[in-house]
């Protein structure tokens, strides 16, 4: 296709898209004026029914818990896929050999070296805080887990791959990740056996506003936190080992 025809194809498609998009955007309801029956209902009953303040978490882990189960296993499968693809790649050299410390730390000032160390502690605490209080404040297992994973990555930034590999013990994180994913499904199955409905909230609901409250939601959120936190760490571990291998090949 010559550049002329291409330009014409683009101009015509752009005009058609513009002509159809504008009425569509114009027809959208104003911000905040959406009134789905589901939204109103959940907002009205969630706190009373599930002893929870953060309604999005109630939707994620209870009213629409089954969707979250699917999402958890999408993540779990991706991590397993990555680990499977890169299994055994570039691992021996790092675990037994001191890393190229001099190269990494050359030109680093004390501030650059020590700032991530403090950040590691802060992010790890923040991640656990987010993961444990999904029922009270915005956050929950996924967000907390991701923040915790980035705390682990800060170890790499601060000290190097060698320390990261040692801290994030692959065996332990492997098992914890699987345990997190399993706990979610197991809690769902337990509810199925007890009440006949999958993922029904079977735990005692506790007092609204307490750290351990909202029944199963709290435990599901914790399971997701463990899974996502360990999963992200494993992903980073695997990918960073790859870069190390590349650096070694080039050296």
């Amino acid at each position, binding site marked *: 296709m010559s550049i002329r025809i291409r330009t014409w194809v683009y101009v015509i498609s752009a005009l058609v898209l513009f002509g159809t998009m504008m009425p569509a955007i114009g027809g959208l309801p104003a*911000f905040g004026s959406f009134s789905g029956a589901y939204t109103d209902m959940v907002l009205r009953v969630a706190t009373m029914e599930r002893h929870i303040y*953060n309604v*999005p*978490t109630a939707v994620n882990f209870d009213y629409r818990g089954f969707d979250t189960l699917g999402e958890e296993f999408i993540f779990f499968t991706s991590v397993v896929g990555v680990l499977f693809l890169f299994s055994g790649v570039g691992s021996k050299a790092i675990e037994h050999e001191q890393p190229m410390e001099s190269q990494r730390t050359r030109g680093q000032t004390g501030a650059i070296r020590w700032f991530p160390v403090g950040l590691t502690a802060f992010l790890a605490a923040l991640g656990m805080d*987010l993961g444990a209080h999904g029922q009270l404040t*915005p*956050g*929950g297992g*996924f*967000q907390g887990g*991701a*923040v915790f*994973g*980035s705390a682990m*990555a800060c170890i790499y930034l601060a000290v190097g791959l060698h320390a990261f590999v040692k801290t994030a013990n692959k065996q332990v994180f492997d098992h914890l990740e699987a345990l997190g994913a399993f706990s979610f499904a197991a809690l769902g199955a337990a509810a199925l056996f007890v009440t006949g409905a999958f993922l029904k909230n079977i735990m005692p609901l506790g007092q609204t506003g307490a750290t351990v409250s909202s029944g199963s939601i709290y435990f599901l959120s914790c399971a997701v936190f463990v899974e996502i936190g360990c999963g*992200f760490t494993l*992903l*980073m571990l695997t*990918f*960073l080992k*790859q*870069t190390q291998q*590349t650096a070694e090949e080039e050296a």
Partner: protein
Amino acid sequence: MSLLQVVLYVLVAFLGGAVVFSKRPVNQLFIYTTFGMMLALLFFVLHAPDVALSEVAVGTLAVPLMVLVTLMKTGDKT
């Protein structure tokens, strides 16, 4: 619509365009990360803190990590 919302909408639109039009993958990645941060702020301003937290996790941690490692592996040849 508050002034903060307007500023963030404009920034998100501008940075979104910048992501598409930047040529070097490394530059693109850092613009994308900034775009993700602004998008997260916009979600926060629009009263969706849960979504904002997820956007921070995915847009400024997961995606940049994958892309950076891929660039390290393949070399930034452009």
